[in-house]
């Protein structure tokens, strides 16, 4: 998509992937942070990790297996929380442990059986070896996320405000919540190859946290978070290739740096000391 501007195919693909992943994840991050579902990032990333391990173990496509497994875990979060009467965060922790156990079990077993399995690309991502199809899939998820937010904007904001009040208002809370979990699962699973399971958290939480330092309303957060993620990711890709640095960790560090700076300069927390 950016080939006419960027001649180098590797840089072009990396930039496109980072742009799509950062936009999708940061938009979802605004919802996740407000609903205290931050742990969904590492639960989903490890579910995708476990799914990829299952895919490799069965000799199938690890990416597809990662998506399928994440979707299955996403489908479990809501009903398990409801049935077990637990906070979604506690359910996420249980599912995270289960996913990690499956992944470690299969990786260890394959090593024991003499079938090598490199988990590093899943854990740390590999932005320079992406296929065109993966970028198209990321673009599709990015568009799907934007459409989802636009179509269900009023329901999502009501959920972000207070789930019980939203339910009492007659909003179909469970339906919107479950669709939201599915889209998060899909975004995380597809972004896994770019930033890896360990750094996906940065794309989900940090841009929303940066936006939260400056924005007073949710609409501006939905604009500011992807904008911050987009600018930092694009700069990170450029700097990574220019100075031969690992792109994903660099983007993560840059985003963290911007967050630290935003905490320092945020006008939201200033106290008015004027007497008159």
């Amino acid at each position, binding site marked *: 998509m950016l080939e006419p501007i960027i001649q180098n195919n590797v840089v072009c693909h990396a930039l496109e992937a980072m742009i799509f992943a950062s936009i999708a994840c940061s938009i979802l991050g605004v919802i996740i942070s407000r609903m205290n579902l931050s742990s969904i990032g590492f639960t989903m990333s490890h579910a995708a990790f476990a799914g990829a391990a299952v895919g490799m173990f069965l000799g199938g496509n690890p990416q597809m297996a990662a998506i399928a497994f994440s979707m299955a875990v996403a489908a479990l979060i809501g009903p398990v929380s409801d049935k077990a009467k637990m906070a979604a965060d506690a359910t996420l922790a249980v599912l995270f442990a289960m996913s990690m156990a499956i992944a470690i079990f299969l990786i260890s077993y394959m090593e024991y059986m003499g079938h090598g399995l490199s988990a590093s690309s899943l854990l740390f991502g590999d932005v320079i070896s992406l296929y065109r199809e993966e970028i198209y899939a990321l673009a599709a998820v990015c568009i799907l996320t934007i459409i989802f937010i636009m179509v269900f904007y009023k329901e999502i904001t009501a959920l972000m405000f207070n789930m019980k009040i*939203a339910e009492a208002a007659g909003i179909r809370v469970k339906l919107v919540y479950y669709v939201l979990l599915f889209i998060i699962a899909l975004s995380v699973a597809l972004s896994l190859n770019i930033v890896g399971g360990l750094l996906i958290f940065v794309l989900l939480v940090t841009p929303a946290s940066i936006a939260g330092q400056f924005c007073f309303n949710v609409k501006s957060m939905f604009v500011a978070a992807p904008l911050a993620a987009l600018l930092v990711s694009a700069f990170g890709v450029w700097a990574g290739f220019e100075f031969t640095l690992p792109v994903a960790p660099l983007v993560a560090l840059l985003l963290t740096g911007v967050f630290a700076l935003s905490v320092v300069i945020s006008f939201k927390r200033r106290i008015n000391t004027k007497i008159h």
Partner: protein
Amino acid sequence: MSVINLEGIYTAYEGGEKAVIRDLSLHVDRGEYVVIGGPNSAGKTTLLESINGLIKITHGRATVCGLDVSFQADEVRKRVGYVIQNFYFDPFTPFTVEQVVMMGRYGRLGLMKRPTKDDYHAVKKAIHLVGIEDLARKTIGTCSGGQQQKAMIAHNIAKEPEVMMLDEPFSNLDFSAREYLQGVFKELVRTGVPILMVAHAFDGLPDIPIHLVVMNRGKIAHDLNCTAGEVECIIRKECGALDKC
């Protein structure tokens, strides 16, 4: 036909040793002002949440506005206003009072539909009615407890409910605010909307006939009609006889 019909309902929480609401029957007509009193843990909040389907009814039959609560809870909640008992919005909640009041209409609007001129008009009217015009553009988390409570009352009035349920709606409000809002509720009752109010303080009740329901241990101990002035006295007497309020 009554707006609310409860016929021998039971409600239980998962894992609870026994039903919280037991064999409870209640009928509420249009334009009734129902005050629900009783000792702590009598099941007052559970009763309200059973009526709008937030808590499952395990036995018996409940209909609200002609809809069966067990099978049409989503539809019931669109028609019933419910000011919940406890809420806290942190200072960084990114919603203004006006946006929160608008959320009251979202259920009625239905999925994927945008607010229309009528919705904005209803929101403006509710904000005016509750007297919080000066707070409309303020983020709700920066409002005081009383202001947040008023915003939640406006949120439910904007919904234009067919039934209004209030769970201790005045706990954070001063006397003048209580009296003012009681006037608002009196007006709602005059238009035919029945009000069910759970309360522990009964000062400032409107001077209209009151349908008093005294609950204890998940059952209705007394269901009678009285005047506003008699409510506190009856509740004190009944609570004294039943248990300590």
